[in-house]
Each structure stands twice: as C-alpha cells, then as structure tokens.
C-alpha cells in the first residue's frame, strides 16, 4: 500500500502551495528503520488533514554531517543549493523528524540566506493535539507500560526543546520514567558530530552501550526518542544487552500514530 504524499513540484504545477514543508531527511528517506518513522508522521499529517508537501527527489542532505566533520565547503555547497530550492518554492515553514536537520535548517541556514520557521515533529504533533485536530484513541496500547525518553542532543541541549516530547508521552496511557541523566544532563547516544559515519575512537566502552544502561535501569518497556540516529544507536544498545524482546525503541511519532489507531 503506498502512502499519500505530494511533492512541492507537484503542488506548484497545480498552482497550490502547502502550509508546511515536511523535510524528510536522509535517514528518513533511506534508512529502513527511519522510513517507518517517516510513514508514521505522514499518517498523522494526513489524518489531521495538514496541507503539507515534501521535496521528494529534489531534497538533498542539509550538510550537517559534513559541517560537524569539519568540512565547511561541503556543508555550504549543500546549504546554498538547498536554500535556492527552498526559496524558489517560497517555503515559509518546515517540519522535520530529524533534530540534526532541524538544528541546521533553523540555526545555520539563516546566515546563508535561508530563513524559515522550523519545528521539530514533536512540536507539530503537540500542536495538533492541543488544537483538537488529533485525538488519541482509548485503545489501551500503552496501558501499564513504562516509557523513558532519550533526549537527542541536537533537540535538547542544542535547541532547548525538552518538553514537547515529554508532554506527548504523558498524553499516552503510560508512565513516563526519567533516566538518571536526562534533559540538560542527558547523555549523548554517540552518533553526533559525524560519529554515526565512523568507528568510535579507542576507548573502553561504546557510548550507546553506556546510554542504553541508563535506559535499562529505568526498567522501561519502551525507549522513546525523537531522532533517527538516536534510534539506531539505542536499538543497537538494546541488542547488545539482548533485550530486544522486552524493550522497544520507538520514535514519538510512532507512539502517537499507534495511540491514535493510525
């Protein structure tokens, strides 16, 4: 079953313009696990009749991993091309499910000529629920479950978004349990700063294993996060402890889509 989603080019051709652009990101487009998050978010957007579009094949990496790896040239090549495209479509507002895209689009593109209102998908979903466009079904999916939230660095410390994802978890019929290191003290999953794309430097432990220990100590049934890279790292961490039967790693969008029977 294919999913209903329109591209900017398609909309422009028929003289329409969307209220918001969904920036899917490379992980959301190509990574098998992250694609599920993308689809969960699209289901929510469609269900709430949000007038949105994606860039489709015109989208390209924001340049975040290049910038964090120290290659400002590659970053700015990407940024300037993306900005030309976004400005060409007269994009005003962007939502993304990737905190790295979120941070780059929101904070680093304005200085290069691309100024947009950029929100993280947890903020959009929170808004949809608060304005009554999305109601969660009383389907008991999460009844009696414990959920812990792993703060993505580029959402939390980098941009001070701590509450939106937590408010959403609290709307589920589940208990939010915090790890000993959370919010401003949250420990990185180990993927940031382009580490996702390289082997870790020599040490005595993997960072995602350290972080997964924090999560397992809460005895949560679900580790929730809001970043495709954190998702990968935490999933690997859970596998490391052979806990994949007992503990699921899920994105907030997936939790909400499940709770809304989508």
């Amino acid at each position, binding site marked *: 079953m294919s999913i209903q989603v329109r591209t900017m080019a398609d909309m422009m051709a028929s003289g329409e313009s969307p209220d918001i652009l969904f920036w899917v990101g490379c992980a959301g487009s190509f990574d098998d696990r992250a694609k599920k998050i993308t689809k969960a978010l699209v289901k929510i957007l469609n269900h709430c009749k949000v007038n949105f579009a994606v860039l489709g*094949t015109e989208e390209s990496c924001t340049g975040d991993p290049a910038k964090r790896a120290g290659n*400002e040239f590659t970053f700015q090549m990407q940024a300037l091309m993306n900005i030309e495209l976004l400005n060409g479509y007269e994009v005003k507002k962007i939502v993304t499910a990737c905190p790295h895209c979120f941070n780059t689009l929101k904070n680093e593109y304005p200085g*290069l000529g691309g100024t947009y209102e950029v929100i993280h998908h947890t903020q959009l979903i929170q808004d949809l629920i608060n304005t009554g466009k999305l109601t969660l079904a009383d389907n008991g999916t999460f009844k009696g479950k414990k959920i812990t939230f792993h703060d993505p660095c*580029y959402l939390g*410390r980098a941009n001070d978004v701590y509450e939106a994802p937590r408010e959403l978890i609290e709307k589920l019929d589940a208990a939010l349990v915090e790890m000993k290191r959370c919010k*401003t*003290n949250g420990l990185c999953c180990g993927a940031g700063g382009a580490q996702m*794309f390289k082997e870790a430097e020599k040490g005595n432990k993997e960072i995602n294993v350290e972080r997964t220990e924090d999560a397992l100590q809460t005895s949560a049934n679900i580790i929730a996060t809001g970043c495709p890279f954190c998702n990968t790292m935490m999933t690997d961490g859970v596998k490391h402890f052979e806990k994949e039967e007992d503990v699921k790693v899920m994105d907030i969008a997936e939790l909400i889509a499940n709770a809304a029977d989508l």
Partner: protein
Amino acid sequence: MQQLIFGVLTLSSFGFFAFNLRKIAQNIHMGLPLDRSDRKADRWRTMLLVALGQKKMFTRPIPALLHLALYASFVITQIELIEILVDGLSGSHRFFQDGLGGFYTFMISFIEVLSVLAFIGTVAFLARRNMLKLPRLNMKELAGWPAQDANLILVFELILISFIFTMNGADEVLQSYAGNSNGFAMSSWLGPILFEGKSTHTLHVLEQIGWWGHIIMVYTFMNYLPYSKHLHIFMAFPNTYFSKLEPKGQFTNMQSVTNEVKLMLDPNADPYAAPATDAAPSRFGAKDVNDLTWKNLMDAYSCTECGRCTSACPANTTGKLLSPRKIMMDTRDRMVELGDFKRKNGQDAEDGKSLLGSYITEEELWACTSCNACVQECPVNIDPLSIIMDLRRFLVMEESKVPTELTGMLTNIENNGAPWQFAPTERMNWANEE
C-alpha cells in the same frame, strides 16, 4: 617607617599585577576578531546570573555551597581591605571602628563568620582532592603542576584566614585586658581560647603579625593569580558577559568559505576577479591559538579546571582520549607560551610549535560527538566545542586528514546528496514501500 614599607609594598604589588594583566590582555588579543557587542541586556543578565549568582554551580549542591562560602567571604572581605589600606597608609588602628560603631561590629562579625565557613570549605576542598580522591579532580591531565596549583591556592586561603583570626583574636584579648571587647562574632571567643594570658607585648606582636601576614598574603595571592587557574575569580565576569547567546547547536558559518562557494555556484562569476574582501584568512580552521577567536582564548584564561565538562563528556566517560578540560588547559598553556615567545622574539617570529600537534592530537578531536554536554556543564560558560570544531576544520580543509569512513560519507554527500550511497532518484521510494 611602617607606613613607607606598606606604601612601597602596595605600590609594587599593584604594579606587578597590572604588568601581568597587560600580558593577559595581549595574549587574548592574539585571537581573531569576533563581534560580541550585541544584546547588552542579555549579556548583563547572563553575567549576573552565571558569574555573580553562580547559577550553574548549583546543579551540584554540595560543592556549590562550599564554593559559595569561599566566594562570599572573598567578596565581602574586600570591604575590610579598604580599612587595611587606610590603616596601613595612615598608621591608624581600625580607622572605621569609631565612626561606624555598631555597623562596624556587624560588618566585621559578618566577615568573621564567612571566614570560618570559608575555612571549613577550604578544608573540605582539600579533602575532596587529596583524601576522597574525587575522580574528576584526579585525572591524568592534572598530574604535576595543575594539582599543585590547586592545593597551593587552598593552602593560601587557609593561611590568609588564619592571619585574620590571629589579628582579630590578639586584638580582642588586648581589649579585654583594658576591660573592653570588640564584640566580633568569632574572635570574641576564639581570641581568648588562642591567646588568653599572653603578655601585652606578645599580643601586640601577634596582632602585627596577623595584620602584616594578612596583607602580605593578599598581595601574594593577587600576584599569584595570573599564573594560576584561580584567575577565574576575575575572568568569570567578562567571560560570562561575552557568552555565546545563540542556540548551542548553532555553529559558525565560515564567511571565507561562503565567498568561495558562491563563486563556484555562480556561473557568471569571474574566477580571476580580485577577492571581494581584502581580509582573506591565512588558513581555514585553527592550527594554533592565534587562529582561534579572542573569546576562545578568554575561555582558556577563565577555566579553573574543575572538570565538570570532562565528567559529562560521553567520549571521556567511555575511555576515549578526549577531555574538554584538557582542551582548555592546552589552549591556555600554548597561548602563554606563544605570547611570551612573541614578546621576546617579535610578532612575526615562529617557534615551530602549534596547539594542534604539539598539544592536542587528532585522536582527541575525532572522539567528540559535538553533544554540547561540556558547554552545558561549564559554570562560567566556556565553550570547548568551538575550539574542537575549529581544529577539526583545519585538519579536514587544510590537511585533508579525515578518517577514512568519513571520506566516504563526504564523497557521498557531494556525489549523491546523502551520507550513504543512495541515488537521489530513490529518495521518495519510502512512500511506495510496504
């Protein structure tokens, strides 16, 4: 005669201190320009909260309270120093006592109470370092001089406070022989315990030892600061004022790169045209301290090596070589070394060393996840991450020293617009997959 000695001592102490402050200012000015003149109200607020109010210290309440005792007693004692200066220069004894009366008694009592708390705090700090062996205060980058520096400062403080009570205690007993009392909160009972029964002459000598010892320690302390991590007591204020106010995730866009990339992307650009700006950078990224901004260098002078950054660093916690505190210590050591070298051998002289290579290794830089935990933790808003990123930029853009896997990632972005090897045409496939 005593007044003359005091005058000379005071003048030379302040003179030498000013001489060293000038060196510090020169060293900071080796850094590249950076505009932090905006949002003045936010800057004052940040300084008041973070430096004066010590807001970020209180995420760890026990050291915060101990530190508060030392900090408050240090700040309040400065009031007494005014009297010491007046007494020292004029030969008076407790110049303000008669005029201020009860308020004077209250002020000195307040200082005495804080001094006792500071004494307790200092002993606790020494114990944490040397007996409890707190991990973050016993890491390998502190071996040798940094550990001695830390202990020396604490011992200075103990001596300083001991002199205050020698002075006030002896004075109290002297007063009691004449049937009077200064009525200060601590010395009125501590004095008799220590010195009761001593002869008037001995007490006079003790009071003088206390007075001179105190002021000599104050001047020693002041002139030791420029060589010590303890300089943070001054630098915390300008350093927090000039904090980065943008979101922590926002890294600088390099203007020099923007100019070149725009030329590359513009089909009408004349590649042989003269560069638009005459201030072309000598290099991309940072190899040495003078490639960093002045704020990076001010950060280095503000670091008191508490190690909160390192204890929160995911790389360090999992045994990697990176320690954000070491990055700051290295930056300061190299800055002082280069500053001294240039003052001696001229501004254009090269000593063949650099921050990257001679002090910081590539392995440290590549361990960073850019998670901002170090920036978040720092009680005086130091930003080790921006130094790490600028050194990385130099490695990658000037030396092409990129870990192999990252070369692949970068090539993919350049060729197919994603860090993995997927064709752009496959970007929408997710919409049609089950």
